[in-house]
Structures are given as structure tokens and as C-alpha cells.
């Protein structure tokens, strides 16, 4: 259940950003989550609902934008989307690939009142 730790961190980051911007309520939190992080959206929302109680984010909607795992072949430079965790270049079949996306997990922005 890493979602609980993530939910707490998301809350802390969003509340700090809202306070810096002088906002009173957070309406929406936009999160970018790479597929490699294995976030279960329903669990994250559930955990967030618990940690956000009695805070300025108690009614905030968590919007999760999922980013697919992408990679670049270091042999032939082909950029591709990794499906089913198959880290093999579709062009030259090399396994020397560098992951270029899909590991990120960040709070992108918040919508506040």
C-alpha cells in the first residue's frame, strides 16, 4: 500500500503550494504518474480522502494523468513505447535500451480558489 505514503506526500506538496499562492481551497490536483510506479488510482483517491480530511484539500479531486513507459535504443536510437515491460528495441532487437519515461510521479499543478 504505497498509495498511503504517496497520498500524504501529494497532500503536503499541494497544501504548501496553495499556501504560497495565498489560496483558501484546493479544487483539483493534477498528478502525472508513470506506469512503472504501479499506482492504483482508486486506492490513491481513497487514501487521499483519508489524509486530506479537515484540510484545505478535503474536497480536492485527484486527477491522474498516466504516462506510458517509453524507451530509446542505445544501439540504433529508435524511440519506442514499452509494452508489457518488454525492454527490447522493436527495430534492431537490442536489449540496450534506456528508459526515457514512465518512472515519473509528480504533482503537476493545482487548481485553487
Amino acid at each position: 500500500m504505497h498509495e498511503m505514503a504517496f497520498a500524504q506526500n501529494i497532500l503536503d506538496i499541494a497544501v504548501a503550494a496553495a499556501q504560497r499562492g495565498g489560496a483558501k481551497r484546493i479544487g483539483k490536483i493534477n498528478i502525472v504518474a508513470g506506469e512503472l510506479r504501479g499506482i492504483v488510482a482508486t486506492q490513491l483517491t481513497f487514501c487521499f480522502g483519508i489524509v486530506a480530511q479537515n484540510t484545505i484539500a478535503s474536497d480536492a479531486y485527484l486527477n491522474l494523468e498516466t504516462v506510458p513507459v517509453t524507451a530509446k535504443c542505445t544501439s540504433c536510437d529508435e524511440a519506442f513505447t514499452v509494452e508489457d515491460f518488454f525492454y527490447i528495441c522493436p527495430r534492431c532487437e537490442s536489449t540496450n535500451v534506456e528508459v526515457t519515461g514512465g518512472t515519473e510521479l509528480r504533482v503537476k499543478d493545482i487548481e485553487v480558489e
Partner: protein
Amino acid sequence: MKISVMTDVLEANDRIAAANKDVFDRNGNLVINLMSSPGSGKTSLLEKTAEALAGRMRLGVVVGDIETSRDAERLEKHDIPAIQLTTGTACHLDGNMIASALPHLDLNRIDILFIENVGNLVCPAEFKVGEDDKVMILSVTEGDEKPLKYPLMFRESSLLIINKTDLLSFTNFSMEEARANARRINPDLEILELSCTTGQGMEQWLSWLTARRQRRLESLGRA
């Protein structure tokens, strides 16, 4: 109104992990974050490692469990300083928990510090603690398809130890399949087969550790 944030959700943890790493750098410790499912043999491997390296290398362990201090008690019998962290409900150790354990260890007198993580194949891989390497154990009784089911941990690890090879003939675990699945997730993953019961693979494990220790000292200019 929209406020741009662009902050990594794990930023706070990563910052504490980096501070832990600074402490380890100053003390010249090689730090191994040992991860696996519950019951795959983390503590047994550490006991065997302590026996084999006694007098050659000074070890220390920070061990995380949801409850009890049984693991620390087992390790202390081998004269290894062991700090038990009971996490309550948390399913992993994070940078902050490790930071809380450091004042209780004489890091100056430790060559290799093992962080024995909470038994769990998912969450520990997400949280850096200031380690040099993540090492994971998969025991043959767990099944050869695990790399595909829990890809992040296999992706994040430098070394995979396939443990309990003495039980291989009692299971339908295919070593070939397990290796192929693990390499599919992480082509750079080093893999070694080991049995704490028969001692198979122990030499390779100790050589791996010794080489990592040497490399660590060289990178710190202490070799």
C-alpha cells in the same frame, strides 16, 4: 486559478535519502538495500553472510518489520550490530526511518550496512534510503513469473539472488524462465543462484559484495 507545482511526490524522501548518503559517504559504508517477499530468506542470508565474513568485514544491519524484534535478535547472535525498526503499519522503510536509526549505529566501525527492508515485493522499491545498491531475493517457492508481476523491484535492483535452490526439485519453478523474465524487465540485472542451506552460490555472493565494497572505496578515494 491554476498554480504550477511540478514537484516530485517523493522529493521529501529523496532529500532525506541524499542526506543519509552523505553520512554513509563520510563513514565509508557500502549500503545495500535488501528487498524481497516475506519468508524468502533475507535474514538467513544475512546470518550466513555474517558467519562467512566474520573477522574480514564489519557488518551492520537496520531491519524493518511491521512487528517484533525477532530478526534483530537473530542477527545479534552473530555479533552484528542490528537496529530493529518496527514500522507499525508501513509496508516499507523510507529515508526518514533510516535517518532515525543512524544515531544508534557506530557507522565508523561498519564496512557494509545492510538495510533489511520489510518483506514486500512492491513498496520498498519506491523509497530510496541512501543505499548504493538495491539487491533483491526471489525464492524458488514463490514462482518464476514474479518479475513480470512485480516489475519495478526487478527494474530497480542491481542484483537478483534466486534463493532456496535446494528446494528446486520440489517445485515447478523454471530457472530458465525466471532468468528470462527478470532480464526482460532489467537487461542489466546480475543474477545469482543461491541456497543458504547447502551453501551453493555463497562464494559468488561474497565476491559480489567484496567487489562492490572495493568499488565504493575507490569512488570515495579511500581505496
